[in-house]
């Protein structure tokens, strides 16, 4: 994108809704002639970001400029001449004809008392033809299907301006054909007309196919941005959506699918089930010690028990052998919570980072507990780990949350080993060496 003209840029943009921070510290540049895909979970702030970028919501920012115009000083007319916005189709309106709706895109070019003339209607008809929806022209907008409405709203935006077009989930409600029709149109606009297209996309595969650049938004912050091919890795997608995803190549076309649909994902996770203090960590230590030929990664957390409950927890990295204090209770008894230590957490995070485990045979996570089910603790790191093709996984889990863990990470046929069973070690050994594996 170097050398291309910046048409839209923001620095340190933030937005709060009822004291809740929805967007934070967003700094982005958008260039002429590029198609940018905005990805993120539901509620990550994608729509809010688009609304802020075109000034529909008033955000806090150090700088927000459209083609050099400072947005905090610009009027709606100035903005609308350069930037058009395609909202989601749910807006309700009077039963205008499609042509009326599309012609309304010309509003900004009319005087306050003006009404669109023949030229404006002609332009609207041309755009309808361009989008291959000429036959909708005389239909009533409110009677259209969701997908048709979406195309009509795109037509209205294009009649307005093509310089910068922001789209809020343009592929929603569109059928298989129309979805690709829409995306191809947008791609064509950026390539042939030098338009800057920014669209929220739901499917990373659409981004892979059409977007020049992607911005991954997580909880109102930018997780990652960059050229699609580089930024949109399995690791990034897994982290972004919290579901393990894997890439596959087909005739040079890359696609990303959730890991659980891959046949090879079956039975790759062993859940070591035992109550608190039942000896999960001890068995894991033994398993690691006994199987020298296996390259282990991940963490085990040996701890000190007082009054039959865990008092403190240490974290041990299985790759490097480093260890640090992870958490400690303030008292030996009572219901006091754990206090976590930064050093231990940093070690655990490092030990569980997926990029370090491409060559590992087995990643051990001790343990996947209630904290992880709430999306905290090690949770953000687990999906990227599962997206790796090589390693198997051993997770220590308490009996009462086994089902929930399986559902949450979409584990397929996990091997479940109870600590209380005498042959636990032997079964871990079998798991590590593929024995009893149906498709080995």
């Amino acid at each position, binding site marked *: 994108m170097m050398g291309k003209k910046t048409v839209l840029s923001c620095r340190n943009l933030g937005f709060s809704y009822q004291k809740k921070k929805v967007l934070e510290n967003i700094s982005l540049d958008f260039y002429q002639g590029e198609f940018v895909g905005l990805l993120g979970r539901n509620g990550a702030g994608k729509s809010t970001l688009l609304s802020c970028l075109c000034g529909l919501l008033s955000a806090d920012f150090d700088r927000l400029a459209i083609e050099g115009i400072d947005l905090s000083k610009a009027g709606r007319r100035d903005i609308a001449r350069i930037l058009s916005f395609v909202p989601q189709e749910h807006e309700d309106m009077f039963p205008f004809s499609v042509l009326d709706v599309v012609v309304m895109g010309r509003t900004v070019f009319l005087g*306050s*008392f003006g*009404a669109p003339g023949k030229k404006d209607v002609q332009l609207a008809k041309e755009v309808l033809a361009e989008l291959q929806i000429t036959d909708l022209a005389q239909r009533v907008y409110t009677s259209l299907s969701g997908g048709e409405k979406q195309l009509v709203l795109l037509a209205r935006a294009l009649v307005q301006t093509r310089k910068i077009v922001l789209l809020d989930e343009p592929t929603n409600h569109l059928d298989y054909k129309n979805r690709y029709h829409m995306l191809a149109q947008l791609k064509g606009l950026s390539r042939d007309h030098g338009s800057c297209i920014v669209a929220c996309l739901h499917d990373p595969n659409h981004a892979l196919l059409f977007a020049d650049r992607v911005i991954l938004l997580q909880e109102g912050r930018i997780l990652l941005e960059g050229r699609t091919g580089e930024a949109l890795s399995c690791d990034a997608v897994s982290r972004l959506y919290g579901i393990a995803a894997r890439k596959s190549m087909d005739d040079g076309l890359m696609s990303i699918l959730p890991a659980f649909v891959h046949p090879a994902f079956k039975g790759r996770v062993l859940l070591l089930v035992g109550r608190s203090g039942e000896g999960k960590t001890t068995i894991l230590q033994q398993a690691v010690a006994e199987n020298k030929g296996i390259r282990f990664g991940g963490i085990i957390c040996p701890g000190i028990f007082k009054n039959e409950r865990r008092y403190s927890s240490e974290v041990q990295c299985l790759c490097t052998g480093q260890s640090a204090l992870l958490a400690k209770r303030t008292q030996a008894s009572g219901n006091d919570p754990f206090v976590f230590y930064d050093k231990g957490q940093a070690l655990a995070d490092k030990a569980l980072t997926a990029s370090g485990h491409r060559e590992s045979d087995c990643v051990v996570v001790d343990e996947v507990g209630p904290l992880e089910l709430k999306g905290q603790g090690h949770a953000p790191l687990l999906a990227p780990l599962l997206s790796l093709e090589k390693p198997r996984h051993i997770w220590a889990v308490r009996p009462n949350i086994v089902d929930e863990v399986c559902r949450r990470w979409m584990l397929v046929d996990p091997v479940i080993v109870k600590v209380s069973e005498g042959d636990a070690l032997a079964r871990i050994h079998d798991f590590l060496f593929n024995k009893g594996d149906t498709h080995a």
Partner: protein
Amino acid sequence: MTEKVNTVTNLIFTVILVAAGILSCFTGRMEIAPGDVVATIIRFPVLLVDILSGDYNSLTDQERVLMLIRFPRILLALLVGAGLSVSGAVYQGLFRNPLVSPDILGVAAGCTFGASVGLLVPGSSFFLVRFFSFVMGLCAVGMALAMARSVKTSRVLVLVLTGVITGSLFHAFFMIVKTIADPLGQLPAIVFWVMGSLSGASWIDTLQILPVILVGYTIFHLFRYRLNVLSLGDETAKSLGVNPKGLRLFLIAVSSFMIAVCVASCGQIVWVGLVIPHIVRTISGPNHRLLIPGSALLGASFLLLADDIARSALSSELPLGVITSLIGAPVFAWLLYKNKNKGWA
């Protein structure tokens, strides 16, 4: 293509208006020959000057009936009908809701309260009643707008709710006035005033209303394409380059002013502002380019014909509000039925 068809509908509305006007010249107790009507119309400017300068003696009986009773009344009906229904069309567009009527912001309730206070003041003139009514109507809208502003969301729904609040508040005030009114003299006057009537129409009233309605209509006519954009909602209007807040407030102010003037001069005439824009929208579509002139034309004819019925149906005059309700309610029900598959609009 559809645009042409719809311009034709406005032409038809004009024809209806002219026909209603002609019919109204002949409606009334006294029978007047067509020749006399034509003669009076030809001499109209001269006669008007005579009347306004207080010289009634030079007029024939026919001229007197036409000039002093029928013509001002016809003109007043046309103005009030057009004013109410155009304001209704504008309100429905601004509030993005076809079920909104012009008194949604409490204008009518305010006017009614003001008028009842005016009627309560001993020895008050008709002028004072109207003045109170007008001022209270604007107070009610002002209150609704101020309240909506302090809620600090730009959502139109808030405005509707604050309108309901002020409306019911002023209605309560009105009830208090009713209970303390003298049941023999003042109460009937209040009740009749509320039901609406054009019977008191004079040239002074008509000429007072005329500029307000004309200016108001001209403003709406000029902004009629903008109304399309505003009817899409704030967000879309903004992204299409129109700042909705200022314009909406301005248009609300203008239409509230028009309604206050109308209600102050002839009482609460219901249904016109709700049904007429509706009928026009059903016939010629929601585009305000046609809806605004169409509503004005049809609203004027509707109220004129309703007034003809009011003054000739029974030996004593019927309240105009009763006639508009009797016609408006069934028509609205029919529209509801007819539009059942098209969604609301």
